[in-house]
């Protein structure tokens, strides 16, 4: 029997779905793809949510642009990092091969701008020195900007799911590149932050939520993730951030660990994305939807 914690959050999601089928970050706000994607994942496979999910998916499908990328929300016209979330959903929801292929192509076309020729020339001319390893193709928040951890994590997960459906060498290569980029951006403490482990040669610490995300992308790479998993356990014990706790619980469960979940009958926060992630993170939640197969 689902507990109050789960029921509260499920009820919040069902109650706050917008007329257009999506969810805002907060109740009564316009629909955005990010909270909508997590709500779909959180509610997936539950009988009473079927109609709700169908409406949500129709909206998400309508936001895919002709170039295969996805709009961030109802008020944003151009494609962004949420293309990765859209692609992940195509492996779960009824979707055409064409829509999935276009999304895969959009991700394969996207790379961090730090790898552009201009920067390479700048370095050669001594006008700047990039502190990070830029040899690996990864993903930015928006086209034309540098690559960072979170969009790369979601792109790697999405491509792994697409790869499981239709293997493709280019996709496999980009997955490996993305994983290597993530590994190259580890902080000195073993975890990840937004994607800058040093600035002006001074180490910057990791964040709990980014460490969890890094672990999600690196499923199957046990040898390289011992330190971050240990750090994730420590973070889970001490962090006060509900968002970080949710991502950490999801990541640890994916790594077959069983973090204790607190008994909490308090009303859910008025934060729809957080409520969806908390639902996913629950021991009975859909956290396995973030599970990916190892790429050969």
């Amino acid at each position: 029997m689902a507990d109050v914690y789960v029921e509260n959050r499920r009820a919040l999601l069902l109650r706050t779905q917008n007329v257009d089928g999506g969810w805002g970050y907060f109740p009564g706000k316009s629909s955005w793809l990010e909270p909508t994607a997590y709500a779909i994942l959180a509610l997936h496979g539950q009988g009473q949510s079927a109609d709700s999910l169908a409406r949500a998916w129709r909206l998400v499908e309508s936001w895919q642009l002709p170039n295969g990328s996805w709009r961030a929300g109802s008020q944003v016209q151009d494609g962004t990092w949420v293309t990765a979330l859209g692609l992940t959903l195509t492996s779960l929801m009824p979707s055409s091969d064409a829509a999935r292929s276009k999304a895969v192509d959009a991700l394969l076309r996207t790379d961090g701008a730090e790898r552009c020729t201009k920067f390479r020339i700048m370095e050669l001319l001594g006008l700047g020195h990039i502190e990070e390893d830029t040899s690996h193709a990864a993903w930015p928040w928006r086209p034309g900007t540098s690559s960072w951890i979170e969009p790369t994590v979601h792109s790697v997960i999405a491509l792994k799911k697409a790869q499981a459906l239709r293997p493709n060498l280019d996709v496999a290569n980009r997955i490996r590149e993305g994983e290597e980029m993530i590994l190259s951006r580890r902080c000195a403490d073993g975890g990840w932050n937004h994607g800058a482990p040093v600035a002006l040669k001074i180490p910057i610490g990791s964040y709990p939520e980014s460490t969890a995300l890094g672990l999600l992308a690196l499923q199957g790479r046990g040898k390289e993730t011992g330190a971050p998993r240990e750090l994730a356990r420590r973070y889970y014990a001490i962090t006060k951030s509900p968002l970080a706790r949710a991502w950490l619980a999801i990541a640890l469960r994916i790594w077959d660990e069983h973090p204790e979940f607190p008994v909490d009958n308090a009303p859910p926060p008025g934060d729809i994305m957080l409520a969806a992630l908390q639902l996913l993170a629950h021991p009975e939640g859909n956290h396995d939807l973030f599970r990916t197969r190892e790429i050969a």
Partner: protein
Amino acid sequence: MNRRNFIGLTAAVATGGYAALKTSELGKEQNVTDGPPGKSAVAVLKATSYSADLVQPMLEGVRACGLNVRGKRVLLKPNLVEFDSATCINTDARVIAAAYEVMEKLGAAEILIGEGPGHRRDTYDLASEAQYFASVPDFERRFTDLNRDDVRPVSGFAEEATFYFPQTALRADLIVSLAKMKTHHWAGATLSMKNLFGLVPGSVYGWPKNKLHYIGIAESIVALNAQFRNTFAIVDGIIGMEGNGPIQGRPKQAGVLVMGGDVAAVDATCCRIMGIDPEKVDYLRLASQLGHIRPDRIEQRGETIQEVHTRFELIGAFERLRLA
């Protein structure tokens, strides 16, 4: 591609720790302009501790600068970046609480609070760690995470065809930039003008808001302040940050609140208090199109700079910014 474009691109990769920026190369081409006609009032008030009464000096300063908030919808925009109990990265909660009370006393119709941190996604947790929920009246109801607010497109921002901003910021009659007096390892200093980076929504531009770095840090600072001209600055210099700011520096007590309606003049005054020559700071030279940064065009109210001057340590690359 000219030299300045080259340098701008370096900064784009550099920001957020990507690269060691050749700061000494930055923006020597931009001359300080005369700015708008007349002079700008900037109030400098002593405030030696966060436990002291901050409302009275803030009220004096705001009145000295002639700010009228009656009937206006005011958005208080603190600087909430990261939390580290060992240092002082963020605008102190008691400064926000005082600003809230001041705006209320002066007859603001509505007082909102909003921020969109550049790196961390859990804005509410940061706000909680920084004691904002505990110290600021009715914080939960008044606060908007600007990273996840609904947005509206505007045209003409920094030569971009379309740029998105949070509706809470666009609807405000007045934004009060409640900044922290800090050094900044890419921009030299971060004060009331750079604080507006937090108005750019992460939901569209990411964490960090890397698009701004590609536009150029100085250019983005000025473009944001041109977009939101309805801004009044109050800088928390009670305890600022020196050295490797804006996150990894050391606390530095300056014991002041600095405020005014000309944000460039406020930042220039803060720089002089910190021992930085504002005319050597790239973004302030650019900002001289918007406001005044020359001392003869700034009318100092309250304390003089000499009375409150506090030399902030700078990282090596920015020693060149020192006041002669």
